[in-house]
């Protein structure tokens, strides 16, 4: 187990448990929930996204920020209802819609100053602690 001591996340909506584990998925581009994510399957449906066709279900989803339609929170809520929501979301910049979506869907939300610092963990199984510590499993 290698510990990345340099990286620490700021908790915005904390985990309910002490830690969770999941595969980290890093989207280098911002995500617009309505239009970019299929609410039933959780697949990324934006053809221009490097994650096109990938499911975000049960992943630790990392993106610079979220954007787009104000229906966005309902898309996150739908993912949760259909049991295909990401386990946790990490962004550089927060906005009202992402926060609203995470609050009504009970999706933990963490912040980092630069997602570049998580690039080397992309597609790896990682453990995130409630306090924001993160390590590769």
């Amino acid at each position: 187990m290698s510990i990345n001591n340099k990286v620490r996340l700021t908790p915005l909506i904390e985990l309910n448990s002490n830690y969770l584990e999941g595969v980290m998925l890093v989207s280098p581009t911002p995500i617009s929930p309505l239009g970019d994510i299929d609410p039933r399957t959780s697949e990324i449906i934006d053809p221009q996204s490097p994650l096109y066709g990938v499911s975000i279900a049960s992943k630790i989803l990392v993106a610079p920020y979220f954007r787009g339609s104000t229906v966005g929170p309902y898309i996150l809520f739908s993912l949760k209802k259909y049991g295909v929501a990401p386990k946790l979301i990490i962004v550089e910049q927060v906005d009202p819609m992402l926060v609203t979506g995470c609050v009504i869907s009970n999706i933990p939300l963490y912040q980092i100053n630069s997602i570049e610092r998580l690039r080397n963990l992309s597609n790896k199984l990682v453990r995130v602690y409630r306090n924001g510590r993160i390590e590769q499993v």
Partner: protein
Amino acid sequence: MYLTRLEEKMLNGELGEAVSIAMKAIVKVGEILGASRLVEITHSHISGISYLNIGDPGLEFIEYLSSKNARVRVFSTMNPSSIDEDKIHIFNISKEELAKQKKIVELLVKMGVKPTLTCTPYYIRKPKLGEHLAWGESSAVAYANIVFGARTNKEGGPLALFAAITGRTYYAGLHLEENRIPKVYIKVNTRIDNAVKAGLLGYYIGEVVRGKIPYIDATILYDESTLKAFSAAYATSTTTPHALLKGVSPEEKIYDKEFIEERIIVDEKELIETLNKLVDQDTNESRKTLFIGCPHLGISEIHYIYDLASKGKIGIEGIIISTSRYVYEKAKNIIAKLESLGAIVVKDTCPIVSRLKIKDYLITNSVKAAFYMKRLHKVKVMLRDVN
């Protein structure tokens, strides 16, 4: 977070369960976004009305609030739905979907939300300078901030509904003067004289400012159509839908070059690159559908289109035009004339949030419509001005 005594009562359930649910969510969102208190609003505009977008989970969410006797405390309006009930035959919608769509609108009307079914709430109630609003619908949010100097964040549909139920939203983001000060100076070196160019400029600026507020120095033909097109496209690509437009924004006086951190020059080249990114090139003209009305057309815009059509300057046969029921009623006579020339005028909805029957190639003057039609409906798109 500081709460007044009334707000504390709302939070702990003394004003009913629905108010308490709404208040808890607003406080939580506000705390995360750094709000020290709440702010009273005068108008909530609720998005997330189309059943085709919010699905069963969205309907269940609204049903849940309704079952807790939710009522709005302020003037509240709603965004478009997925149907024009007077023209059901031109939509691909099942009986079940239609029933669920009607249910969403009914539940909200029962809560006291006006069934305006439009993305242009500013025609129904004009926002005042400095007024606090909680609006969903990004294009309207940008228009309220930029053109009227009212203050609203781009709220998600559920939060706008919570704000309607409590009459409040969190005091953060664009509600604070300090967050409305431009940090980016943008000089536009090409004349913006129609809705397509205004949309391309808005989309490009939204992409490059990365959430900062720009002061935009441009030669723009300022009319309702260009300002709406600019606002809608800008709100499509930015997270912070506010800007100061030289000569338009009533808050122009708060522009101070001392706060400018970045200067950006926009030439014709950037607009062409943006166009190429958004549209498809190959076209078989026989399969096209023309669409005008994103955002919903206002009365003067309807008159303008009719003027062009009646003088034979544009072909109107088969064009889809979308507007609100408010404007539809006010411009009834002119709309009847447009329809007699072959236009299809729909109210309460638009091709983005519905499954209006269209060909597989859409030509529109709206950058926002092009962006979403391509993604949500997998049609090819082309941008062209009405002229």
